[in-house]
């Protein structure tokens, strides 16, 4: 939400429309997941495809909550199953209920995302009045 006085800054925010669109698609796929799985797949896949085409990166938390193969919004208990790996107990598994794709993650308490680090924020675009801010970060 750019302020009226700094119109120059609002133009500098590249990919504003695409970010809005991806945000909407992610929310839509999460909303529809319990009602219609096919639609949820389609929205999730589109969200991923837009980020590929426009070369705008998704946050890893968002990326991991969509199925890598079919794009279904993974809600544990409704559309996904969480389990420990049957052979290796240092891994946990997420299984998609639509396509059966399994993905493993390492359980490690010491691991941190680079994006959680305050040093990763390069600049903040937005106005201070409404308190809404958009962070531009380097991945």
């Amino acid at each position, binding site marked *: *939400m*750019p302020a009226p006085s700094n119109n120059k800054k609002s133009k500098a925010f590249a990919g504003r429309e695409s970010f809005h669109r991806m945000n*909407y698609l992610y929310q*839509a796929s999460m909303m529809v997941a319990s009602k*219609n799985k*096919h639609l949820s*797949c389609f929205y999730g896949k*589109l969200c991923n495809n*837009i980020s590929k085409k426009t070369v705008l990166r998704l946050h890893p938390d968002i990326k991991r909550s969509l199925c890598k193969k079919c794009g279904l919004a993974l809600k544990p208990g409704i559309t996904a199953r969480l389990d420990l790996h049957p052979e290796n107990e240092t891994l946990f598994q997420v299984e998609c209920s639509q396509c059966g794709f399994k993905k493993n993650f390492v359980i490690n308490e010491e691991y941190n995302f680079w994006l959680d680090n305050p040093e990763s924020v390069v600049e903040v675009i937005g106005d201070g009045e409404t308190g809404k801010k958009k962070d531009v970060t380097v991945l």
Partner: protein
Amino acid sequence: MEKHTKVTIDSTNPHVTVLRGEKSKKQLKGIKSRKKPFNRNVNPALFTLPREGSKYSDFEDLHKLWKSHAKAQLWTLPGELNISSHSEFQRVLSKMEYQGSKIQVLSSKCPTVVNHSGIVLLETRETFKIISEDNQIRTLPKRDSVFLLKIGNIHLKIFGKHLTIRPAERSIKKIKNFMDIN
């Protein structure tokens, strides 16, 4: 694949010439190589929506979500529409998302489709799939049809032929002036 068998046809018409005989092994090989193997990465159920069985009331929340999306795109400030330049407005419109919007067909080359309205569920390169209030899913061709779109108190006429791009590619493509329509 089925085996090719010999067929005898009594053609009394002298103008029709029928080629007889099996296809040679070289020809059959060509047909086999054209058949692609089943691609596991593409979900086969992606583009299929059953015609009946889904309810209109389920997707009213989706439409509410879309309204907020459209307002965030067009109104950068509350109460002020950024219509300062016409080309800018069109650029934003072409990069917007249409899945979740309410659409009505004003005119079309296909007469059975005219005056249907509903919430857009799926967008492909050539069609919109909408669910109307009688709980039925219909496909509308984009090309050769004109749609009515309402955002707040703005009524927009959208010519479908300008949207015949794949939905993922729409956000990159640079558009030229849309005003040159006759």
